[in-house]
């Protein structure tokens, strides 16, 4: 690990002013905020991340979960994943979020990892993590070793010829289906970013993963009120029963009235370069009867643009079956 200066932010304004001196908030940032450290310290040990300055934001007053007047929820940036997953309002109104978080990592890591940190969780692509390998995300222009290499766990949606790295977060998939809004404070003031616009596709610049700029501090995330009569769940398929990243996962938020799907929000995990909202699947479901045939059409639509690599072709069918089964579970009579 390279040396760095460790500082503690006494307030958000100070943290933002300090971080704004960096040339980027993306891969290679010289200044990094640290929350739980479960991603950052791991990558610093691998020399994948080499910040010169690390700013501890854990003591900023961004650690509350509160009900909003409109029935929604606000979640502070440094709320721990375990506190979020076990919060009574999350369990009651946003089951998909609780289930997604509890399906990820371990109890220890969930006690450390924060809401904002999880939004910024980095890919587990082995080539990104190994500094002696080419990787366009870590070292732009060096090439993508994964496309011709070990790519079984990598993405089939949203890829480019430069990067096929999977977004590894479970929480992000649930947040995408819940249409969360990410609130950021930066040098130019505050702004709200829908989660669908927060992560960006790799395209020609895989080193860029989000719309964050130097000095941007995620302060909190808000969730809209739960849809009346809606049900939600997260289904995750992986190589082990626990403590493993998704090969495919599905977050479903659905309302069924008299056997018909009146509203559906669908996101997939383990298959996309970003948390993969599928408005295509939602389109196939809305107004249709909650039947296996309709679910299959939705799954086919969600994976229509899939581009499998040499080792991950199985993910196309796996993700479809995952979504079909999740829809079945979410829409069956209680």
């Amino acid at each position, binding site marked *: 690990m390279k*040396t760095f200066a460790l500082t503690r932010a006494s307030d958000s304004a100070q943290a933002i002013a300090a971080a704004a001196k960096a040339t980027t908030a993306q891969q290679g940032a010289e200044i990094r905020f640290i929350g739980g450290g*479960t991603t950052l310290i791991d990558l610093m*040990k691998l020399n994948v991340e080499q910040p010169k300055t690390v700013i501890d934001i854990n003591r900023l007053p961004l650690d509350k979960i509160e009900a909003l007047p409109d029935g929604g929820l606000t979640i502070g940036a440094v709320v721990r994943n375990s506190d979020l997953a076990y919060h009574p309002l999350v369990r009651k109104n946003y089951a998909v979020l609780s289930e997604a978080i509890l399906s990820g990592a*371990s*109890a220890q890591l969930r006690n450390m990892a924060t809401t904002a940190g999880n939004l910024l969780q980095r890919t587990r692509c082995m080539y990104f993590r190994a500094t*002696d390998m080419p990787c366009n995300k870590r070292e732009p222009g060096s090439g993508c070793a994964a496309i011709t290499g070990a790519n079984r766990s990598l993405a089939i949606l949203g890829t480019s010829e430069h990067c096929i790295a999977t977004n590894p977060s479970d929480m992000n998939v649930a947040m995408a289906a819940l249409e969360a809004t990410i609130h950021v404070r930066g040098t130019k003031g505050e702004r709200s970013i829908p989660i669908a616009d927060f992560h960006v596709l790799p395209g020609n610049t895989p080193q860029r993963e989000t719309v964050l700029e130097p000095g941007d501090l995620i302060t909190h995330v808000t969730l809209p009120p739960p849809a009346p009569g809606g049900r939600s769940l997260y289904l995750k398929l992986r190589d082990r029963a*626990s*403590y493993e990243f998704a090969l495919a996962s599905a977050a479903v938020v659905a309302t069924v009235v008299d056997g018909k799907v009146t509203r559906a929000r669908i996101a997939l995990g383990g298959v996309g370069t970003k948390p993969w909202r599928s408005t295509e699947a939602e389109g196939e479901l809305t107004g249709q009867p909650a039947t296996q045939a309709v679910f299959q059409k939705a799954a086919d639509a969600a994976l229509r643009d899939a581009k499998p690599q040499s080792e991950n072709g199985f993910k196309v069918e796996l993700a479809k079956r995952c979504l079909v089964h999740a829809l079945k579970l979410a829409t069956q009579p209680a």
Partner: protein
Amino acid sequence: MPDEDASNERHDRDKRPAFGESTRRTFLSRLGMASLLASAGPVTTAFAQRSMKEPLPSSVSKDAVPVTLTVNGKKHDLRIDPRTTLLDCLREHLHLTGSKKGCDHGQCGACTVHINGRRVNSCLCFAAMHEGEEITTLEGIGQPENLHPVQAAFVACDAYQCGYCTSGQIMSAVALLKEPCGPEDADVKELMSGNICRCGAYPNIVAAIQNVRQNAKQPKAG
């Protein structure tokens, strides 16, 4: 020294399949080499200093920061390099070697300690960030003459073989007793999945934890 390692690595690699043909095994072993190489700088410095028989605190760099850590109820005033993980600080500076280093990347759970009563992977914490917090290690939960019920249950159930992961298993299990955990073995297995046991003592570990939970439920005699 790092250059020598690097040339050995290159030499090694020449004997391996070309990159595109690399097998999972060669790839993984190369990754292991890569992570060793990546940290060669600081590691070799530390080793060099140790072989010069200098006491460990002298390996602290000029960037050292003062920090007061509260471990097992006792305060310690330290000067540490900001890179020092809580795990290394406990083991190398405070000589509390109950917490073990396995993977050093938050994947095995051998380093599990409690911060303010919650279990965390101490290998993924910078020690200097934890001033003012209550840190508890295995040494803080029980003593040979006064075992914590979880420790006693691990002995009674033979819940270990080589013992390397045991301290992390016990620290996880102690924390689990206060967490929302369903009654079944499967619930315990799920919440213990962040602690890997290469010997495979899992059935006895689960039995030990379930014994403690059962006993806690029963009203005490007398």
